[in-house]
């Protein structure tokens, strides 16, 4: 019984993570950890935006020219 609950824990955690990711993406905020990991993998020599700078950058992007702020009727 206990073991079954233990087995569930990672999937519950993953579900929570996905839920948070979805909620953030709905308002135009991609996953910050993913961004950092991507930068580390592809441009390890270049600086990475802080979480705050990332937030501001994405916010400006969503409502800027050609951004994704467009929503349906």
């Amino acid at each position, binding site marked *: 019984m206990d073991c079954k609950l233990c087995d569930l824990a990672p999937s519950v955690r993953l579900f929570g993570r996905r839920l948070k990711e979805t909620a953030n993406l*709905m308002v135009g905020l*991609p996953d910050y950890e993913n*961004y950092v990991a991507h930068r580390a993998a592809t441009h390890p020599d270049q600086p990475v935006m802080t979480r705050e700078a990332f937030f501001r950058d994405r916010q400006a992007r969503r*409502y*800027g020219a050609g951004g994704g702020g*467009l929503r349906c009727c």
Partner: protein
Amino acid sequence: MSTIRAPGNSALSWLIWLVVALLGAVALGIVALSRDEPVNAVWVVTAAGCVYLVAYRFYSLFIATSVLRLDARRFTPAVRHNDGLDYVPTNKWVVFGHHFAAIAGAGPLVGPVLAAQMGYLPGTLWILVGVVFAGAVQDCIVLFISVRRDARSLGDMIRSEMGSVPGVIALIGVLMIMIILLAVLALIVVKALAGSPWGTFTVFATIPIAILMGIYGRFVRPGRVAEMSVIGFVLLMAGIIYGQTVAETPELAALFTYRGETLALILIGYGFVASVLPVWLLLAPRDYLSTFLKLGTVFALALGILVVAPDLRMPAISRFVDGTGPVFSGTLFPFLFITIACGAVSGFHALIASGTTPKLIENEQQVRFIGYGAMLMESFVAIMALIAASVIEPGAYFAMNSPAGVIGTTAAQAAQTISGWGFVITPDALTQIAHDVGETTILSRSGGAPTLAVGMAHILSGVIGGKALMAFWYHFAILFEALFILTTVDAGTRVARFMIQDLLGTMLPAMKRTESWAANVVATALAVSAWGYFLYQGVTDPLGGINTLWPLFGIANQMLAAIALTLCTVVLFRMKRQRYAWVTIAPTLWLAVCTLTAGWQKLFDANPAISFLSHARRFSAALADGRVLAPAKTLAEMQRVVINDYVDAALCAVFMAVVVSMLVYGLIGIARAFGNPSVTAKEVGGGLQTV
């Protein structure tokens, strides 16, 4: 699941699908054929659910495997341009949520409510048939062609696949639909708030609440969206509760009681200020609130309908299919198909499906789930709105949605007129409903939002709070709609501004500079005055505005869908998949027939209630004799009515011209593709993943 499975061969799988299909058929039969006893809403939900399941399992699979041949081995834009910012390969459920949040707006909540005047059956059938064969097909295929073209926008793709002239025509069409959309959405808010201090107070309160959230998310705890949203939500609920005190205290109520005209001017001014303010201060935080509130409410409503299982009081088919209805004028064909746009087929989605969503898809095969699936879910929102409008007493429905010019301004007059139509209701019942929801009157609150709010209050109070909380739920529903409409108005004004800058920039390069304050203010002022003009015209309209503007919006939205589906058809021909082109040709033709017939009647019908030109002629003739026709009170107002009619007629004519010219360019594109023996579709990223 990385591959699309062929239809399961196991006997069990076929048995299950047989049961689903039979259940759907039985549910549809009950919904369509019951006459003497009221139908329970759960049957409508069951019918819709089974139709969606079968359509997704079979038709969308056919589109994915045979028509589009989705290929898991192709690199998607998200994979090829992965930057962790705009292009991010993302889990398909996460993309689904993002896409659904972007396509679900006020449209599917309003159209079905208006269409309920013809009974619940015509609307239900059109929503189901429309989404399966038109709406979801459009969303799915536009998403597909954008994914194969570096996630480019609809306008860009039309330019490259069909030519630069159709590209420009489509852009102008998109700008016009934006203007009409913003006007009609703003009008819905005005109609819901006029003379309602409780509603007005709570909606006004969202401004300081959003600013507080904005400051918190910018300086106190940067980027904490969840914290901001929780703070905002709590304050919002406090605002609704305090709103009751405001409404019950005469001195306070006087501060928040406005006529429609005043509210329209406030909204126009607000639209201007809000879209030049920094986004983090007002727009972004309100966007967070409205997005989460919207989804929460949609789920709550779905749960409420299943738990309460209300009966539909509206007849299946009402006498107003003949076109004499008070909510919108015109017969079932074509006007039902114009009135319910979003939820069945919405051209606007083509902009979303060629916007951010294609930049997030990690595997091309997910186009089916995200494009087709999310639209089915949006369609379900429309079904719920139709249910909410049909569970309230039909007499009350007509009292709320008929213009004052038809039913008068007192409960006694309204009850008498509406009972005369065969929807028996007493004046006391009308007053009682107004009292239950904490308003002084519910008469002529057209625009869909208040009706939906009464329906939702009816359903949700059945789950939590009973009659005591009915007024709270009503204002909660009004607030939820107003909140996301205002977010759309302000984000949409910004988008319209960029489009205007883009269009004017081709002639006047200085206008193109989006960082320039002068260009910014000029373009914003142009955008706001364009929708503001139609808003003000709608508010002062004798028929209540919605009657005039909603069909224009519907025509515009279906026009855009016809454009998008024409592009899809041309692309299928250029891919040499013309065998399957009927998948997009059929809905394109249907939409073209609907928009052109509706447009024609809006222009040339003999009935002044339908046609702008007949209406203008009637007023011009009276003007020539020096007579003043109601509701105009002076000759100058008469003059204005005539001018408005001509403006609306001109707009309608332009929409029709756009549809016709796009169809012609579509035919040219098809002929060219057909004459060329090789594939001419301009796809990018053909490189196969070596996985």
